[in-house]
């Protein structure tokens, strides 16, 4: 049976001046799998993810998501399609609380704008409950929306075990927690495709284990397709369904963990030097 891919990166090339960051790269990600991108430093992993999320524009090739060509779609129109990401060097809203970072990610699910947002009277809570609810739904969609989305966000906060920091400005949090908040923010978009750029980099063993567990749980419970960049090859071999290996912007191998670990070119170029 042929499963149509969720994501098809179709022979893309991206260069910065003379640097060819990605060359003629082609791969497909199937719905529901954990797909890892590995390779040495500067291999073009981040550039690939940036191209998928719209951060960079490849000069050649196309990118298809759910069969739709998204190559020319503005970045901000990709999130509503179901693509979310985290960044290699955390890109949170540092002055907002963890909670607000996640709430900000509910943007695409909310509607209230200038007027409905501006009219939001706390005074209504002094009305009788039944009356209050009716008035709110009709006259104050903003409050209603806030509360509904808050439920979704609180669930994610519980899931990622960060209830204790939800009201803290993320700038004040420890590195590992910030990484977790960033994962939470991506999850709050309820994406079909989650792009994770080195979610475990710089973490200690315990934090890494937590993160791996979260990724597996997200995959299992939410059936989210995950594209993962990770340097820890052992960990990738454990959790990925399929792997693509990059070197100098080119694909040098693709397959299941077993296939990759036996691949001559990969061992020569990458695994060998890592002493796997």
């Amino acid at each position: 049976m042929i499963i149509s891919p969720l994501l098809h990166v179709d022979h893309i090339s991206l260069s910065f001046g003379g640097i060819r960051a990605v060359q003629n790269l082609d791969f497909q990600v199937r719905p529901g799998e954990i797909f890892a991108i590995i390779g040495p430093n500067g291999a073009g992993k981040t550039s690939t993810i940036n191209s998928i999320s719209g951060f960079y524009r490849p000069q050649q090739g196309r990118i298809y998501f759910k069969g739709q060509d998204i190559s020319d779609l503005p970045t901000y129109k990709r999130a509503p399609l179901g693509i979310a990401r985290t960044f290699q060097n955390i890109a949170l809203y540092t002055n907002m609380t963890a909670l607000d970072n996640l709430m900000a990610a509910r943007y695409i699910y909310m509607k209230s704008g200038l007027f409905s947002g501006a009219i939001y009277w706390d005074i209504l809570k002094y009305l009788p409950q039944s009356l209050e609810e009716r008035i709110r739904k009709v006259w104050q969609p903003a409050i209603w929306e806030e509360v509904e989305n808050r439920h979704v966000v609180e669930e994610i906060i519980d899931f990622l075990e960060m209830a204790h920091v939800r009201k803290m400005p993320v700038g004040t949090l420890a590195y590992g927690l910030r990484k977790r908040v960033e994962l939470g923010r991506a999850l709050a978009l309820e994406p079909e495709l989650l792009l994770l750029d080195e979610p475990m980099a710089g973490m200690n063993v315990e934090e890494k284990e937590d993160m791996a567990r979260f990724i597996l749980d997200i995959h299992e419970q939410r059936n989210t397709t995950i594209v993962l960049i990770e340097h820890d090859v052992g960990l990738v071999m454990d959790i990925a369904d399929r792997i693509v290996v990059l070197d100098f912007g080119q694909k040098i191998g693709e397959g299941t963990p077993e296939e990759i670990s036996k691949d001559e070119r990969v061992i020569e170029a990458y695994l060998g030097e890592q002493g796997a």
Partner: protein
Amino acid sequence: MRPSGVYSTDYIEDQAIWRTRVDYFWTVFFAVVALSLPLFSASGVFGELGVRFVPETLLGILTDGGILLISIVGLNLLLGYTGQISLGQAAFMMVGAYSSAVLTRQASIPFIFALPIAAVVTGLVGLVFGLASLRVKGFYLAMATLAAQFIIPWAISSYRGDFVRLGGDTGLTVDPARILGIELNTNLEEYYLVLVVAIVMWILARNMVRTRLGRAWIAIRDNDLAAEQLGINVFRYKVLAFFMSAIYAGVAGGLLAHVRRTISPAAFDITESIEMLGMLVIGGAGFPLGPLFGVAFFLFIERWFIDFARDILIDILPSILTFREREALEASLLAGLPPLLFGSFLAIFLIFQPRGLAYRWMIIQAAWRLRPFSKA
């Protein structure tokens, strides 16, 4: 299905403007003071009965302060929440002032309609200058908005057409505000007019920033590239911030015109724009109370501390000076001291308290809540 309404009240509570008893206390305290102050002036109810400890001049000062506050609340949406700088806020106030003046006097539109129309006109002018934010950031954006500060006063003072009269460099005389046939022309009436508008505008701004719109703005301020990845059309929201900020300037300008009753291009120059930015920074950009603290601090310096500082300086002037030299020195102190003092305070704040008074206030409050475990 979750049972509806079960935790919803908690979350609504959690997102309320006033959350703690201390919040309520301060709000009620200020509301009572603000509302009852004028009653104790010469024209107020108690004043007429002989209890008058509030001078009329204080009402005038507070009215001016309220107008400034409205404009700075707008500036806060732009600078404090969206992270976009504007050096044109005074020019935008000018658009509001002239629009409202022309609409009421020359087009005979009632004040309560003229003010919102003037605000929207100003908003659109602000939006046009905000389009520059598509291309440039930071310093270059400041320069682009500075263009507004030069073009608008120049255009208004050199306009000689027949469509409306703008009065060139001399300016215009403006009618007092009139609501439902009542002319608001005493200090007390003007005070209440500005107070009500300021409170409404502050609450609207507060609501904007705690819902979807505000989070989009803050996301842009803190990390515009990541904001784009959340599906936020960054350019659209930047321009919207310029629009909103100018709307606030327009309302402030409109009120100013009807309170001062004469307007001229000289009243809206670059100094005013920079002073407003300074007040916001001192008060705390990006905090709801920032504009209030900033204006209060400014009025304190301008109306009280300067006299005090000048008196001290004059006292210590060397006594060998002749009467004429002394007079000349006093005159230059009078002119030079306000910008010098304000500038020094701004510099001190930028170095020692860059996040402003509102931030300090938050820390003090947090410490108070944690007592007796805190040392602050």
